[in-house]
């Protein structure tokens, strides 16, 4: 017994001071290998008396367990130490820059179009489109604006031929004409898109964006028009209350016609929408003129409804505090990065119109 006790004590001492994993493994073999010291001691058991054997066996097993525990603890200890050392050596400066992030952006006009479409989608409108090049009939005549009508002067038109037959649409209203000509009432559409007028200064660009709205059914009246636009403006500017004013105006293709102003004030140099005692004109609208309905083969004694046209760029400027319309179309990298929207920021009802 004392022999094996001594062996145990020696090896425990040895293991206590040992820090090399290979040497610990060698010790393990020395003790428990095929011809290991303890293995041999176990082999000897067979040659001693039964009484002694029992006692010795129990001692041997205890020693074996103790040593084995010691060895595995040691191995773990050394391994942990080594891993820690390795990790210590591998430490990098994580404040170094990541690989370049390439951030794309959606242009404010596109974002605002999506916002508008999302809002009108909620109240059952679908989206229609029309070509940028229009004929004179769809852009003017069908819209109750015959040639030689002074209202045509309000639109500085780009022409593609000398007969003034082909032009760049001056508003999105020709989409009304196209939509009604190709279908049967009821109609409930919006039509966003590019529009063109040969006008260029701080507040006018030769190309800009409008969204047309049209709702024709049997009993659509000015109250519906008011309700629809009221809903839209409140949703768009994401405010609970909006000061809004309908004011009589004139467009050849609607009768009665109205312009809509919203209240605003300037607070700390920034425009605040919805309050205040100043008025800002934001859109034109009205009941579709019976002459227009006749022109598109809709019976005005059966069907009636409203139409509106909203300047998209202007709405975007107001909502997102953009001062210069021209900058929309100048492709300045800095401007696009600053005012652009994240592509994942898709306007929707359930996630909220804007972040």
């Amino acid at each position, binding site marked *: 017994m004392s022999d094996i006790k001594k062996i145990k004590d020696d090896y425990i001492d040895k293991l206590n001071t040992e820090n090399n994993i290979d040497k610990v493994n060698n010790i393990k073999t020395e003790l428990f290998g095929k011809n290991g010291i303890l293995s041999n001691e176990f082999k000897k058991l067979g040659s001693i008396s039964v009484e002694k054997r029992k006692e010795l066996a129990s001692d041997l097993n205890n020693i074996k367990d103790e040593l084995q525990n010691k060895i595995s603890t040691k191995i773990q200890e050394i391994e942990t130490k080594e891993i820690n050392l390795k990790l210590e050596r591998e430490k990098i400066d994580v404040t*170094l820059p990541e*690989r*370049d992030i*390439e*951030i*794309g*952006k*959606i*242009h404010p006009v*596109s974002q605002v179009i*999506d916002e508008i*479409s999302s809002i*009108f989608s*909620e*109240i*059952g409108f*679908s*989206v229609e*489109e029309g*070509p*940028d*090049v*229009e*004929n004179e009939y769809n852009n003017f005549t069908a819209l109750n604006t015959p040639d*030689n009508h*002074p209202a045509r*002067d309000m639109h500085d038109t*780009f022409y*593609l*031929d000398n007969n003034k037959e*082909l032009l*760049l649409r001056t508003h999105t209203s020709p989409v009304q004409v196209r939509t009604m000509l190709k279908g049967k009432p009821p*109609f*409930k559409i919006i039509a966003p898109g*590019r529009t063109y007028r*040969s006008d260029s200064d701080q507040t006018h660009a030769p*190309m800009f964006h409008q969204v047309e709205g049209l709702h024709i059914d049997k009993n659509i009246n*000015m*109250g519906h028009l*008011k*309700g629809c636009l009221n*809903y839209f403006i409140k949703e768009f500017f994401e405010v609970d209350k909006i000061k809004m004013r*309908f*004011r*009589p*105006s004139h467009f050849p293709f609607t*009768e*009665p016609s109205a312009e809509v102003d919203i209240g605003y004030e300037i607070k700390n140099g920034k425009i605040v929408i919805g309050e205040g005692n100043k008025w800002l004109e934001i859109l034109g609208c009205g*009941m579709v*003129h*019976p002459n227009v309905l006749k022109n598109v083969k809709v019976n005005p004694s059966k069907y*009636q409804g409203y139409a509106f046209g909203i300047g998209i760029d202007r709405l975007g400027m107001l909502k997102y505090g953009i001062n210069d319309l021209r900058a929309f*179309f*100048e*492709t300045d*990298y800095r401007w*696009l990065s600053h005012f*652009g929207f994240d592509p*994942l920021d*898709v306007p929707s009802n359930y996630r909220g119109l804007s972040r």
Partner: protein
Amino acid sequence: MKFTIDWLKNHLDTKFNNNQIIDKLTNIGLEVESFESSTSELDTFIVAKIINAKTHPNADRLKLCDVDIGGDKTIEVVCGAPNAKNGLLTVYAPPGSIIPKNQMKLSVSKIRGVTSYGMLCSESELLLSNESDGIIDLKNNKYANKIGEKYFKNTSEKVIDLSITPNRPDCLGVRGIARDLSAAGAGKLKINKKSNLKYRGNQNINVTIKKEKVQGCTTFGSCLIKGVTNKESPKWLKDKIKSLGQKPISAIVDITNYVMFDLNRPLHAYDADKIDNEIIVRSSSKGESFEALDNKKYILENDMCVISDRSGVLGLGGIIGGTRSGTEYSTKNILLESAYFLPRSIRKTSKHLNIDTDAKFRFERGVDPLSIEEGLIKASELIKQICGGEISNLDVKKIENYKKTIINFDPFLFEKTTGFNVENKELIKILEKLGFNVSKNKKILKLLVPSWRPDITQSIDIVEEIVRIKGYEHINTSEPVKTRLKPTLNYYQKLFHFLQRSVASKGYLETVTWSFTDSKINQLFKENDQEIPIVNPISSDLNVLRNSIFPNLIFYLKKNLDRGFKDISLFEIGPAFKGKNPGDQLTVIGAVKAGKVSRLSWNDKERNVDTFDVKKDVIQSLCEAGIYKDDIVIDDKTPSYYHPGKSGGVYQNKNEKNALAYFGEIHPNIIKKLDINTESLVIFEICLDYIKESKQKIKDLKSEYKFSDFQKSERDFAFIINKNFKSQELVNIIKSVDNKLIKSVRVFDVFEGENIPEGKKSIAVNVTIQSEEKTLNENDLDNINKLIISSVESKSGAKIRS
């Protein structure tokens, strides 16, 4: 349309204050653009204080003054006045001011080598006295806290500026505005005084209106006023003319203008002694000419309505008079004209000759055809009152009678259109106040439309009149009905939306550029499309519709490169025009990528952007938008603006004719021609119209979910193959060996040169083989390997590298 409240009150008895009137005008559709004092030339002169007066470095008698004019900074002014000293309060005139004494316009100037911004003024320079020895010395107690304010009080009455819509010519006269206000309850329209004018003798200049193919004039009224003394207008009249923003000319001209703005009744005064015998109203013949009152000579076309005498054209009827018969201070006898010209003819002539006058503006919108006499009488009275003279009987020649407009109006249409009800009694009252003659026939109102309202022709116009006067605030707000007739977006609209955001998510900034472009740049991208010029472009460098989306993108890319940006990714989604007819347009995404990847990276090697960067972006975007990658076929035929060797076309599947996308390097010639300064420029484009619409929704498109858990094996092969042989072909050959077993083929190495024969290249592929039925053994795999090698070798002429 400008006028003063004072002027309005000539026609309207009202208890409304100014602000109430302004609000009412806007509420009934007469939009007030502004309400302010007309600007005066004297507005620029302001109270200022000399902070520091030092001697001019180059002139002993001049002083250099730092002047406080109320802003953040002082202004430096050179001044010769002996009394200029520190602390003096005086009057300052900034550059641009007009000095009353000599009418000189100040500009920034150098005086003896020192720049002087404006001037300090003496009393004599401001015509306040003859004192010219020094600059004005303002009393401290009165002006000390007025630095920066206007020195002269603007005493002119505030002017209302209305924006009158083209349907309302009647409101181009003050009386019309008063009538609208009275209908809206803002007062009572004053009844015109009965004229007690005495007429003597006849209008003995013969007037003839010729019947013409294109009639320009239907009525011509006139009278002679003999023995007048033309002169400066009296102050009240001058003030009225000035409030319109116009310059008084002479009493006679001012009176005709005054009546025009008062009644919307344009008139013209001729010097009767300059008329050759008679007046003939007729159509012009091509080549006739006259000198107009704007001092321009106009050469006329056929069928323009002219007022002429025996010697020729006197003026363009309803548009502009001529110098030959113009009134002057010396004019003794006047022929006063009050006529009706047809809007169409006026508009056509004035557009053609590019003339815009107040008379033309009114006639083209429609002047009251029954106001001929009223205008003559009102103007004659004023002329007699101011210039004296005797008035002849009125002579009115007519070739057509005014046709009344009668509308049978069902009041129910009002409620049906507006959604609210107005009692018949109120409705009739409104219409009567607007000048309608109303009679009732059971439920229907028979309405005689006033002659000054050419815009009112049908029942809906009546609805508008009533709701406008009643007030739009009475319209209810109905909650929007949410019923939907069809889905919000169709397939292509969804695709637009998807691709737009998909491309942006690859790091591209979306831009929006003009649909027109510079033909010189367009030329480089238009391929076989016809150029589409704009007849009246906004500028010569935006003179055609873009045939491709790239001209503007590349133009602005260059601008950003010139701004110092090096790594740029931009895209636009929008129209490219293929012809000049409506609908000849495609919806295209164009994207450009310039510069380097990993520029100045501390851990990666930087490299130029290349074709495979954009190939990845375009393919990934298409896949995200729902196109199957496995179906996509690439070829190397691309438009000429691409680098012919480093660009490709993308086809939705092998049967498609049109490439739905292209990608690659831009042609080096374009970089050179446009002087683009970048290390590398790659582009891609997607044509949305060429993407085939999927008829099925994704729920129907998803195939059965199948997968295999049997062991898969990977094998690598390297082939020596002709340099021009496409890797896509090789991959297809390998796949076709066994579509079921070969799960994927990946090209992992391509090289030419060392150890590879001239004209050949080496392609290495990694092939994944997996069965869905069993684990393949060595024998199975060997067989497949052999088949792959033999197929490739026989179909492509390649040799396996040993």
